[in-house]
């Protein structure tokens, strides 16, 4: 069975909704407490980026099955300004130095798969997957 759902991000409180949805799906899928917390933190970071830099966007969730493993795919997308220098934002210490949060490298660490496509002026799409251990 493949289920998918999505949460729109526009207000700051939508971040909470996005976390909640992610955590619920993660829990149902059999993720442990610690991975649930990691998934929620990653979603927070992605949704917060949308809220801060793109104003509007969405977080989509999809339960995926592959061979004999199950996972949760989370895709955050927006039509915001995009990211000019991707390698810069993917560098450790770039976003965290000002205490802004985990940044995209943090999201990459929290999840098992991470991919980002960003077109300056058009928007950003970040896809991540966490597998149930």
């Amino acid at each position, binding site marked *: 069975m493949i289920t998918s759902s999505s949460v729109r991000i526009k207000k700051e409180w939508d971040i909470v909704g996005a976390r909640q949805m992610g955590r619920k799906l993660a829990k149902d899928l059999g993720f*442990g*407490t*610690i991975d649930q*917390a*990691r998934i*929620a*933190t990653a979603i927070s970071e992605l949704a917060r980026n949308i809220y801060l830099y793109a104003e509007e966007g969405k977080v989509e969730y999809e339960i995926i099955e592959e061979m004999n493993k199950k996972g949760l795919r989370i895709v955050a997308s927006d039509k915001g300004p995009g990211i000019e220098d991707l390698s810069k934002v993917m560098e*450790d*210490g770039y976003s*965290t130095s000002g205490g802004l*949060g*985990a940044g995209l*490298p*943090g999201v990459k*660490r*929290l999840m098992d798969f991470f991919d980002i496509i960003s077109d300056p002026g058009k928007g950003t799409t970040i896809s991540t997957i966490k597998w149930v251990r």
Partner: protein
Amino acid sequence: MKTEKIDVSNYRDLLQKYIMAQDERSLYQAEQFSKYSIQHNISPEEIINVHIQALKELYPELPAEIDASMNFLLETMISYGLAYQEFRSLQEKQGALESEISIAANVQQNLLSTTKPNVIGLDIGAISVPSHQMNGDYYHFVTDESNNLGIAVADVIGKGIPAALAMSMIKYSMDSFPDTMRSPSVILEHLNRVVGRNIADSSMFITMFYGLYNDDTGALQYSSAGHEPGFYYCAEKDTFFEMKTQGLVLGVTCQADYEQHGITMVEGDIAIFLTDGVTECRIGDRFIEKEEVLEVIREYMHLPAQEAVCSVYRHFERLQDFHLRDDFTLIFLKK
């Protein structure tokens, strides 16, 4: 401590022991556990997770409120865990960078190496020690078939890697000057143009003292581009004087003139070339006085030149608690 790995049963036993006895021994083991976790890159949230699991196994009847509160704690630790991992990865990067710099420093040393020439009737000693990995000081000897010895001592203001790069440029332009070009003032004029043309960075300046010694006549001519004046020890009068001469720092303007002075060296005289790492040596909070520098030089100058410069260096090194604040370069020419 038997915790070879971080697992719940191990931690549970330890926790149980502690809860029963509340003894220092268990706490010591907890400390070991914590160190082990750091060594193995285990994030704080994972330790809390293990704690929660252990607690639940020990107390299956754990009140729901406590359980919830533990999850709450776990949540607060996630970002710390990330910051910790990031710190570790930055630390690794720093290590890689440091080893790259040390390789660069070796390359620099090879590029800038100069051999101390054998000049009959002249005892030469030279030492140059960087305060950090890359040396911003530089000295170079040039000899020709007319028994001339050129001595250049330079200091790049603005240290580190950029300074080292600039130094290589200076060396190679000096090497490319024709043998007929010997006069210190002319050499500095040329170098000034080279630096002015090639270094756009206005925050980087190079000072240089250039001396030309002729072995047949004993004449020493010298010019300076804003460099720390050298000292001259006159054996007959048993006094030192500064080899002062006017000239702009290299690279400030493309056209600069450099004064040139001369002296004839006689038996027992010593010409001393140095950088401000010697004269601006700091003892505690104060800079050393010029007289103190000369006292130290006087103390060791009777030694063979190489031994003398090394002794002076060791003296200042000890004075500064073996921690140089600036690159240190000292050259003795003993007649």
